């Protein structure tokens, strides 16, 4: 969490829990480093010895293919030994406690543990109790910092600076860990953020006005349930995944109505700026939150998001392991 940045690339990162603990310079350093790493990815022989002798553990309590494989690939390219642990537990059957698992991982001498957990705050709990560096690969509905950083990296590759750009996030803001981490990253880099969705999927305190809370960094975020207003003059639009159970839980009357009111369509995007960039953290429900034509259109960088992921995660592992 504690990050110090100097004017060189030497920059210490003990844990990567969320983007909120990083400064603008920290983020830029990580993105620059990712660019160097991407160069390795483009080589014929994708292997560098940077993390030889280092041990990385991926500990996933939730199913995930893309994030876990992305981390594993990043670690292997850097020559680290990667141990994968899948710990699928149901809420009823308590397995070994997270605390004891954390102690075990520390005891085997892991340098970094990458944790995905259905409970918000699980990586913070681990980081508090062990010395091993912790990377948050998604915790509950709280944060998904590596996704946010890789998206920032993808945007940067595409358009350069994010400062002053209008970025709109559409959909399930309330339950989206990706949206939360994005709000941090984007606001630190000076973007103008608009969030849009039905009021049932926006945190109530946002709607009631965070301005009452002194010093809250999200005070400046614009909140709207009007999709046309949200998309107008947008430079970047990100659709969030709509969890299908939101209908059952009473947040939405129907997926059809959601799609009708908030789906990203070519027609709606006409009011955005020319060349508007379309993003989605995946996995997509094509036809619900995003029209197929938009998801696979010329302005979409959804594919590139995946490639950026490996480079970004290599950068993070490199920074965390090699400076320890």
């Amino acid at each position, binding site marked *: 969490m504690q990050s110090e940045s100097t004017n060189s690339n030497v920059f210490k990162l003990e844990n990567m*829990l969320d983007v*909120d*603990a990083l400064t603008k310079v920290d983020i830029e350093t990580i993105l620059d480093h990712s660019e160097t790493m991407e160069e390795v990815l483009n080589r014929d022989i994708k292997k560098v010895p940077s993390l030889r002798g280092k041990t990385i553990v991926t500990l996933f309590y939730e199913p995930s293919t893309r994030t876990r494989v992305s981390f594993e690939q990043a670690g292997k390219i850097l020559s680290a030994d990667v141990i994968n642990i899948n710990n699928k537990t149901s809420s009823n059957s308590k397995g070994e406690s997270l605390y004891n698992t954390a102690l075990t991982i520390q005891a085997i001498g892991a340098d970094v543990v990458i944790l995905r957990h259905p409970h*918000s*705050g699980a990586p913070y*709990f681990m980081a508090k109790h062990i010395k091993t560096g912790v990377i948050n690969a998604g915790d*509950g*509905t709280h944060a998904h910092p590596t996704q946010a950083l890789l998206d920032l990296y993808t945007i940067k590759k595409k358009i350069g600076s994010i400062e002053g750009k209008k970025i709109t996030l559409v959909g399930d803001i309330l339950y989206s860990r990706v949206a939360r981490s994005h709000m941090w990253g984007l606001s630190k880099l000076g973007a103008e953020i608009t969030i849009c969705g039905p009021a049932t999927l926006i945190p109530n305190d946002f709607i009631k006005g965070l301005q009452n809370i002194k010093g*809250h960094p999200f005070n400046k975020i614009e909140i709207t349930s009007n999709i046309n207003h949200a998309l107008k003059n947008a430079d970047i639009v990100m659709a969030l995944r709509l969890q299908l159970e939101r209908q059952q839980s009473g947040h939405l009357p129907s997926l059809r109505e959601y799609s009708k009111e908030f789906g990203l369509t070519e027609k709606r995007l006409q009011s955005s700026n020319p060349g508007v960039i379309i993003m989605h953290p995946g996995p997509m429900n094509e036809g619900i939150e995003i029209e197929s034509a938009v998801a696979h259109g010329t302005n979409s960088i959804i594919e590139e998001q995946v490639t950026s992921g490996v480079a970004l995660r290599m950068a993070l592992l490199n920074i965390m392991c090699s400076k320890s």
Partner: protein
Amino acid sequence: MAKKLLIYGGRIINPKTNINSRMDILVSGSKIENLAPKIQKSKDYNLLDARNYFISPGFIDIHCHLREPGEEYKETIATGAAAAAAGGFTTICAMPNTIPAIDNRSVVEFIKNKSKEEAIVDVYPIGAVTKGRKGNELTEMAELAEAGVIGFSDDGNPVADPNIMRQALAYSSSLNLPIINHCEVPELSKGAHMNESWVSTLLGIKGMPNSAEEIMVARDISLAKLTGGHIHIAHVSTEGSINLIRNAKSEGINITCEVTPHHLTLTDKSVLGANSETYDYAPVTINSYNTMAKVNPPLRSLADKNAMIAGLLDGTIDIIATDHAPHSKVDKMCTMNEAAFGISVLETALPSLISLTETSAISLPLLIDKLTVEPANFLNLDIGSIEVGKIADLTIFSATEEWKVEPNNFLSKGKNTPLEGDILKGKIKATIKKGVTIYDKDK
């Protein structure tokens, strides 16, 4: 014959008789024999020098969880009573969410017998409203009353079904005992682990809105009006609830309520692991997701906390009760989702409350009133007052002595407190139960 005990030089705060002055107390056997500005010392007396201390009636806590029977690894009647004595309490009431629940005569008798043998303070059981606290069928309330319960509650759970609540209030009214409700609409709090606010959004933890409490408070007020039964709102925590109760009292509805020390002094920023002096933004850190601050009802916003203080000042709140909820280490050494609700309060209640005398208009006599006279009235017991001829239940304390909260030194098995490491002002010197010193910090 045991020696008489002369407690001399202390400042007596006895709200019942409006005393707030330096007086000596002579205790003979279990009773107060004399109370006067100056009582002559004698070599036949045991002496207790109280010159640096306040003396109040022994505190009474109408809301504790003693965990026995069923969860003795968290607390027992003996350890809970010892913790109570260390916190200045001489009478406590045990909530019925034990395993099995206090829903029949034999469990009431178990608690009474066990208390008689092992507890150094008086323990009064509270009976369940419904069998197994399941919310479906009323317990045999009349028999429970006969066995000695002082009221009925499904605490931990609300009585969710309004018809069951209606019947419970009507039925208990003929027994002259209150229904104590934990007000929480389950549909609005499902899956929630803290208060719903900007803090829960920041942490990505599902919160319970104030409405979850207020809707049920409003319902219970209406049902108390309908039936004439006595509704007691446990651990009130929101500004809206206070407003509803204030209004109901002005209409003459048979309602009382209690507040905990933590809802008077802490906000949900404690879950963030941040200093709660202000309600300004604070970042998420590795000290966030503080399971020690997970409690139900949850620690609320600053506006709610201030409403608790206002409610205490204007008399809307009748009683201060601890909701002492001890848990073992594993119950809290986990994520917020997995952690148990509850705080171990008995041994920090007094200093937490004393802090209010510095940060608000609340006075020490008002606090003592809410810890002694009011709960004694609620229980219909002839305790809670320092008078000649009355039982000598006394609490002797310093309002200025500072100490560091080290839960490992608690007598309670529950070391779960968000105050760990804090320096608090106000310390119990000694607790006297029926003339016997049951706690002395220096011994």
